[in-house]
C-alpha cells in the first residue's frame, strides 16, 4: 500500500485562510494575559470610571466621556500590545517562518493575522458597547462613519508599530516595551481622566488620546473629527506600517 504516494496540492485559499484565522483566534482566547488585556482592563475602566466618581472628568456625563475612551483603549490593546507580543514570540518560535513556508504563504499569513485582529476588535467593541448601553451609555448615532474611519486609521497605525517592534526587538523586550507603552498610554491617554493639554502635538504623540477624543466628538456630541486628529492618526497609519513593511522579519 502506498500510504505516502505524493499527491501535493493547495487547498482552496478560502479554506486555508478560514482555518488560520480560527487558529489565531483560538490561541488568543487561550492566553490568559491576552484576554485580560483585551476585555478585563477595558471592562474595569468602563465600569469603574464610568459609574463612580473615582476621577475628575471635564463633564458630568461620565459614561459619555469614558466609554469612547475605553473603546479606543481596546483597539490599542488588541492591535498594538497584543499583536506586538504575539508576533514577537511567534517569530522567535519559528512559527512565522514555518507558516510562511506552507501553502498558507506569507501574504496569506499576514492577511489571516490582520483579519483575526479585526474580528477580535469587532467583537470587543460590540461587547463593550453593549455593556455601556446596559449601564446607561446613550451615544449619538449620527457620526458613526467618521468614528469607524478614525478607528481603522488607529488600527493600521497600531498594527504597524506592533509589527515593527516585533521585528527589531527580542520577544522579551517587545513584551516589555509593548506593555510599558500600554501603561503609559492608559495613564496619560485621556481614558480615565483628561489627557495633558499638549495641543495638536499631543495627538501625534498620544494616538490613544487622539482616537478617544475623536470618538467622544462623534459618539458623545455627534460632531466632526478635528482635522488635527485626522492628520495625526493618518500619519500613524502611513508611517508605522511603511516602516514595518521595510523591516519585517520572518525569522
Amino acid at each position: 500500500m502506498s500510504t505516502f504516494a505524493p499527491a501535493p496540492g493547495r487547498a482552496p485559499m478560502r479554506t486555508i485562510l478560514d482555518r488560520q484565522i480560527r487558529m489565531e483566534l483560538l490561541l488568543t482566547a487561550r492566553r490568559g494575559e491576552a484576554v485580560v488585556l483585551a476585555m478585563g482592563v477595558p471592562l474595569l475602566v468602563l465600569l469603574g470610571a464610568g459609574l463612580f466618581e473615582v476621577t475628575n472628568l471635564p463633564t458630568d456625563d461620565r459614561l459619555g466621556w469614558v466609554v469612547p475612551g475605553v473603546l479606543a483603549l481596546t483597539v490599542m490593546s488588541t492591535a498594538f500590545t497584543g499583536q506586538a507580543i504575539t508576533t514577537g514570540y511567534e517569530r522567535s518560535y519559528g512559527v512565522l517562518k514555518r507558516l510562511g513556508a506552507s501553502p498558507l504563504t506569507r501574504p496569506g499569513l499576514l492577511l489571516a493575522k490582520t483579519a483575526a485582529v479585526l474580528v477580535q476588535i469587532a467583537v470587543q467593541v460590540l461587547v463593550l458597547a453593549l455593556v455601556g448601553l446596559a449601564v446607561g451609555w446613550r451615544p449619538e448615532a449620527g457620526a458613526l462613519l467618521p468614528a469607524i474611519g478614525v478607528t481603522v486609521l488607529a488600527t493600521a497605525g497600531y498594527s504597524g508599530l506592533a509589527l515593527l517592534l516585533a521585528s527589531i526587538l527580542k520577544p522579551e523586550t517587545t513584551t516589555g516595551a509593548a506593555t510599558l507603552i500600554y501603561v503609559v498610554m492608559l495613564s496619560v491617554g485621556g481614558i480615565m481622566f483628561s489627557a495633558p493639554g499638549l495641543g495638536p502635538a499631543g495627538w501625534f504623540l498620544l494616538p490613544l488620546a487622539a482616537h478617544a477624543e475623536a470618538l467622544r466628538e462623534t459618539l458623545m456630541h455627534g460632531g466632526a473629527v478635528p482635522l488635527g486628529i485626522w492628520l495625526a492618526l493618518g500619519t500613524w497609519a502611513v508611517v508605522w506600517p511603511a516602516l514595518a513593511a521595510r523591516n519585517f522579519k520572518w525569522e
Partner: protein
Amino acid sequence: MGGDAAAVEVRDVVVRYGETTAVDGVSLSLPRGRVLALLGHNGAGKTSLLQICEGFRRPDDGRARVLGLDPVGDHDELMPRLGIMLQSGGVYPWATAGEILRLFASFAAHPLDTDMLLDRLGLRRFERTRFRRLSGGEQQRLSLAVALVGRPELVFLDEPTAGMDTEARHTTWQLIEELRADGVSVLLTTHLLDEAERLADDVVIMRSGTVAATGTPAELTSAAAIDVLEVRADPGLDLTGLRAGRTVAEPTPGQYTISGSLDTAGLAEVLAWFATAGADVTAINTRRRTLEDVYLSLTATPTPVGATK
C-alpha cells in the same frame, strides 16, 4: 511544470553571513525518488544549504533549483509540493498536537489521514497535549508529521531524529524508507553515520562549507575494501615471507594482524601462506572501513580531500 527535473539541483552555491562563509561553492543533485543525506559536523553548512533549497534565503552566489523551480522566486508555487521539517520549533507552543497537525492538513488539497499519522508516529496519546508540553523527541515527531501531512513530492528533513529515543529513531527510519518506496524524494541532514548509511542512496559529506566527498554509502566505504585481516594461529611464526606488500604484526602471541592489498586474491595468498607454514588457523576476522572511518578521515584533516566518486 518541471515534471522531469531533478528533485534538487544545487550548483556552486555560496552562503555568507557577514564575514563568515557558511557554504562555499557546493554542488549536489538529488534525483527523483531517492534519499540524499548531507552528513557533517555542526557548523559544516548543512542547514544553511537546506535553507537555500527551502527558499528561506537566496544564495550569495550559485544557483539552486527545486523540482525545476526557483525556491525564492517560485516560493508560493513550490510550497504545496514540499514537506519541510525545521531543526526545531516552527509550531505554536500553545496549540495541541492534534490542532497543529489538522491545521497543516487543512492547507493541503489531498492530505493524509491525520489519525493515521498520529498513530504511526506514536503521537495519538498526545493529541490533546500542547506543543510546549511535549518532549524534544515528541516535538520532532510532530514536526515530521506536519512535513508529511500534505503528501509532498519532496521532503527536507533537518536532523530528523535529533532528540529522539532509539525506538522513535527506528520508527522514523522505517517511515523514511517507506517514503522512498512510495516515490517521495528526501533530502535530510544528519551527523549520525548509521542514519546516513541506513537511509541514504547518496551521501554528501560536508566539511567547513565545502563538499568533502560524495557517493553511495557503499562507494564511500568500499574504496578501501578490507582494511585489516586478523588471524589467530600458532604463535611465533616467521613472518618474513608474508611481508611482501603487506604490513604484518603479532601484537599478542598467536594473534596476527595483516593489512594492505587484501583483495580476494590477496586474502587467498595470506591464508595459503599460513597453510604452507603448517600453522593451524583457528579464527579469522576481517575489518572494513566504515562510513565512520571515512567520515573521520575526511572531516579531521585540515585540507579538503578530493571527491571519491
